[in-house]
């Protein structure tokens, strides 16, 4: 079933993969900025909103010795690849893959948002932007799934 091709039902007049792709690019830009800044030993600039420095320097900003933003880059690259591949092929499983991976990311982001608010007690606006983009990607993928004609179930 998941390898079957099903014509995508347009969302806002375009292929829904393009909407997912735009959200993936937004997430990729934000995560790339954070990764480059943090890997070069600096802290991201929050502008007039404070909190980025505290989150960036927090011990929770690393996972397995790597800044969490780097995992955000990897996730966004994979999600963007899935969205583009779905756009080109209409293979149903690629939509499900995008949905599943963004759901895993939402769990991670929920945990990181909890750390920012209740443990670090500082909120990084860049991180929140990424978290919102990921939540939107998950919700859009879910909406697209619900609206999408399903391939016939195999018996």
């Amino acid at each position, binding site marked *: *079933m*998941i390898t079957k091709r099903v014509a995508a039902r347009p969302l806002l007049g375009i292929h829904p993969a393009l909407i997912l792709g735009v959200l993936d690019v937004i997430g990729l830009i934000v995560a790339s900025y954070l990764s480059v800044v943090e890997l070069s030993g*600096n*802290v991201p600039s929050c502008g007039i909103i*404070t909190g980025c*420095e*505290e989150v*960036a*320097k*927090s*011990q*929770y900003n690393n*996972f*397995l010795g790597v800044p969490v933003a780097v995992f955000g880059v990897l996730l966004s690259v994979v999600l963007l690849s899935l969205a583009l591949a779905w756009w080109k092929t209409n293979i149903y*499983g690629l939509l*499900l893959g995008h*949905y*599943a*991976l963004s*759901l*895993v990311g*939402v*769990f*991670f982001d929920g*945990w990181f948002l909890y750390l920012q608010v209740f443990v*670090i*007690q500082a909120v990084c606006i860049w991180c929140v932007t990424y978290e919102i983009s990921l939540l939107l990607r998950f919700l859009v993928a879910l909406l697209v*799934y619900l609206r999408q004609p399903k391939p016939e*179930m195999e*018996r």
Partner: protein
Amino acid sequence: MSRTTPNPATRQDRRKLELEQRRDQRRAAREKAQTPSPLRSPMVLITGAAVLIGLVIVGFMLLTKPAAPSVADLTPPSSEIPFDAPVNGRTLGSDQAKVTVDIWSDFQCPACMNFATDIEPLTISSYVVPGKVRLVYHDAAFQGQKVQRPYDESVEPAAAARCAADQGFFWQMHNWLFANWNGENDGAFRADRLRAIATGAGLDLARYDSCMAVGDKQSAVRSETADALTAKINQTPTIIVNGVTYVGSPNNFADFAVVLDQAYDAAP
């Protein structure tokens, strides 16, 4: 209106009816077995797997949560205070310096740590030692207030630094504190670790202990922090160069050097 089952007249009719009923039952059972369960749909399986993976990742992060640093786990500062830099309590540099840099800082603040470890050492060697600039440290110990605990991890290291100042070791203690920064309100500056840091900075521990026990240094830190808020200094570090305020740490020493040069040239 009720539907009645025709009453079979003969034994053969009854037998035929029984066979038909069995056939219908078998067909119904076969169709039921062939209808895929909603629980076996790819979406449900994928959602379940994603939720499981997400929970495993969060659980792994919980299990690998970094512990508070131990007393034995101390890092010496990467720079030392030059012997030829005049020291007077929390002031470093000549009284005759044309430029005064007031640093409002919190030992728990990561941006203050960046300023202290990346920019201050070069400022000291390039501007303070030659007599152009004087650094004056002030407490704006806000970070500990976030958690409202009896032991304030911003006030206590600031008080420890003031106790070090009484022994002429403020700047050494300042460097040791920032070198051992490790998150906020997470135990990096708990009492036993502060004591170990004081040892590293070269303090007389007996004098340090009695100084910290009195409580007047903690009161002084709180009073100066309140003064900072009154003066609308509510971010750290806030750096005031000859009266001109800069909020936040400069990006790098080169940027800060431009500010210092301008202040030096403009000073009478």
